[in-house]
């Protein structure tokens, strides 16, 4: 069978009777007309290039009107809970509608890793093409960071972070208690740009240690092998002061032992603070130690740890209903 010219989803596009189209149109009646046309087009020809428009359109329908403008910025790093005000119950409503339109099921285990628009777009695209979904981004709370990172307080400039193969993001709140702010500057505490660059570097270290690097068999990136080597194209745009919450993000550009190069940015809200075209770290491998206990990443939102297919409370299965997803209030 020849390779299809378009990225066609295997599960759809075969038959699309008028009743199914009417049902899609009804289910999406509160979405924009472009969303509806994208959904109908997708079900007709299976062209997965329709999927981003469908997903954005469905998310938009559930976002409170005053926050919808954010979706128009094209920022795929928008987070459902923090940036779009979507609680875990609304997330379920979005998922159910996406499932209905895209004709697929999203297991609870996968759902809990979908934190940003980009996560969802990538995930749905892979599922629609019948490809394995990407390794989900892992969330690291402060205690996870302290356990994993070679750099430690008071020189750790990450409060939390989330890492996937394609990117890493983190948060740091400038408390005003940082020791160097006493002298930088006199009676005028300002976060040094060099420290913000350091924070981006730390996020790069985390990315290298988070298990996305394909190492030689039996080896892993050693936390004692990672050092800063250089940076290019650094610009500081905004003065950052105590109380500001830095949103850090990096994306790997090149990865070839012993050098890993990332592009990085630091923002406060939507405002640029520091941009770096390239930050390069050097790294090396060490023998992998088989862990005695594998610690799971911390839960990232209100979706509970229930890995079953959600039959709790419906069919009287053996699962404790108190483990039910989303509300925990059954």
């Amino acid at each position, binding site marked *: 069978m020849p390779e299809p010219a378009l990225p066609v989803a295997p599960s759809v596009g075969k038959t699309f009777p008028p009743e199914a189209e009417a049902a899609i149109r009804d289910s999406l009646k509160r979405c924009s007309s472009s969303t509806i046309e994208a959904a109908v087009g997708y079900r007709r020809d299976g062209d997965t290039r329709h999927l981003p428009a469908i997903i954005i359109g469905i998310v938009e329908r559930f976002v409170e009107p005053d926050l919808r403008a954010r979706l128009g910025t094209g920022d795929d790093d928008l987070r459902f809970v923090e940036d779009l005000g979507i609680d875990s119950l609304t997330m379920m409503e979005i998922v159910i509608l996406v499932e209905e339109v895209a004709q697929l099921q999203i297991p609870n285990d996968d759902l809990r890793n979908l934190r940003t628009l980009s996560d969802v777009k990538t995930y749905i695209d892979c599922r629609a093409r019948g490809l394995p979904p990407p390794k989900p981004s892992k969330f690291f709370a402060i205690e996870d960071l302290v356990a994993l990172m070679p750099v430690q307080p008071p020189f750790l400039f990450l409060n939390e972070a989330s890492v996937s193969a394609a990117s890493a993001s983190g948060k740091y709140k400038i408390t005003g208690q940082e020791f160097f702010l006493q002298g930088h500057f006199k009676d005028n505490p300002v976060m040094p740009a060099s420290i913000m660059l350091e924070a981006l570097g730390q996020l790069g270290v985390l990315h290298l240690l988070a298990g996305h690097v394909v190492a030689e068999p039996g080896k892993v990136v050693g936390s004692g092998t990672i050092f800063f080597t250089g940076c290019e194209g650094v610009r500081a745009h905004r003065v950052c002061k105590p109380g500001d919450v830095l949103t850090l993000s990096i994306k790997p550009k090149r990865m070839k032992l012993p050098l890993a190069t990332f592009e990085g940015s630091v923002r406060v809200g939507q405002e640029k603070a520091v941009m770096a075209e390239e930050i390069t770290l050097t790294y090396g491998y060490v023998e992998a130690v088989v862990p005695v206990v594998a610690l799971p990443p911390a839960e990232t939102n209100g979706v509970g740890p229930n890995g079953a297919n959600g*039959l709790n409370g419906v069919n009287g299965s053996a699962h404790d209903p108190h483990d039910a997803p989303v509300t925990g209030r059954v």
Partner: protein
Amino acid sequence: MGHSSGMPKVFITGLGFITSIGNDATTVGDSLRALRHGIVRYPPFDHPSVPVKVAAPVREFQTEAEDCEDWTLPARYRVRREVLRSLGPGSLYAHCALLQAIEDARLTDADVSNDGTGLYAASAGSPGILTRHVTRMHEQGVMRCPPLGIVASIAGTVQFNLVAHFKIKGASTGFSSACASSSHAAGFAHDEIALGRQHRMFVIGAEDGNVETILPFAGMRALSLNPDPDTASRPFDVARDGFVGTGGATVLVLESEAEVRRRGVTPYCELLGWGQASDGHNVAISHPEGAGLAHAMRRALQASGRTTAEVDHINAHATSTPIGDISECRALHAVLGAEAARVAVSSTKALTGHGLSLAGAMETGFCALALRDGFIPGSAHIHQLDPACAGLNIPRVTRPTAPRVVLNNSSGFGGANVCLVLQRA
């Protein structure tokens, strides 16, 4: 349930109504005085296979659409989607009635949300929404059901929603004794205050009042088949043939005397006490002598420290069913004795139809209006009094007489009976 000296007195200080005879206290009071009923030919019953033709739906709300975002409500209410998505029609009415009651009682946000303020509710849930969700589960799959389908439809839906949305921090639960439910809620809410556990309670009765809540009663032959809205609900009339269904919501604000004094508000009336007793007879048929109801009335009077001689008016449970109205008349004779010829007994269900879980709270609200405004509602639509109801003082028109002590009766499935005792403040 007691009313002994030293226990805090309990007052009704606010009311909210979404009912077939008015969506605010003023309109409801006017309807009660003018005996203006809320019963209509109900379009959803138009199908020839449905022998029931009338109902008393709430006005100005359209809640028949499957999608709650297609519902319409009066312009004075704005309900965000995030709130609306877990509401059935009855909970939406309750939400609106609670807003009214809070305004009526002049409560601040801080008065509403504190650990001394609780909420007791009664409703049958939303069988229409439950049916649609279960159908969807079977047809489209377990994982395609709306995540809040349960919260919007099961029997506790009114308090789940309102306690969360109004940030209630005190006692909260629901009552499920069918047509006695919201009287139970009022009784136990009274006790929360009388026992000093809470200083303020919201009491809520609510029903969807649609095809799914009303028509199942046709199977037990409990509904009137009379297609004439003007006569279908006629408690105590010899030609009565069943009840007329209604929906809506009523909210009562109950407060301790200390709170009434602190806030400087004028209450509608005092809720003196209450009593309850069960028939122990039949799951759906009232005791032929009204034994449980008579016992409940006696206990209520005893708990309230009042005698039948002080009672001026009784808002009867009488739903316009052939058997039920007679049982209640016998219970009234048994309790009132010689006072039976004096005490004015009426059933406001002639105007509203029967509100099921809503009935107790709605009719307690009617009694509160009668006590504050000084009238006794007539028992409408009686053309020929049933001889079995003879010997009682059943006024056919509203009297401009201010009652002192008023009883409100409610009876539910299983033979549960509740009587509330109210007194002019």
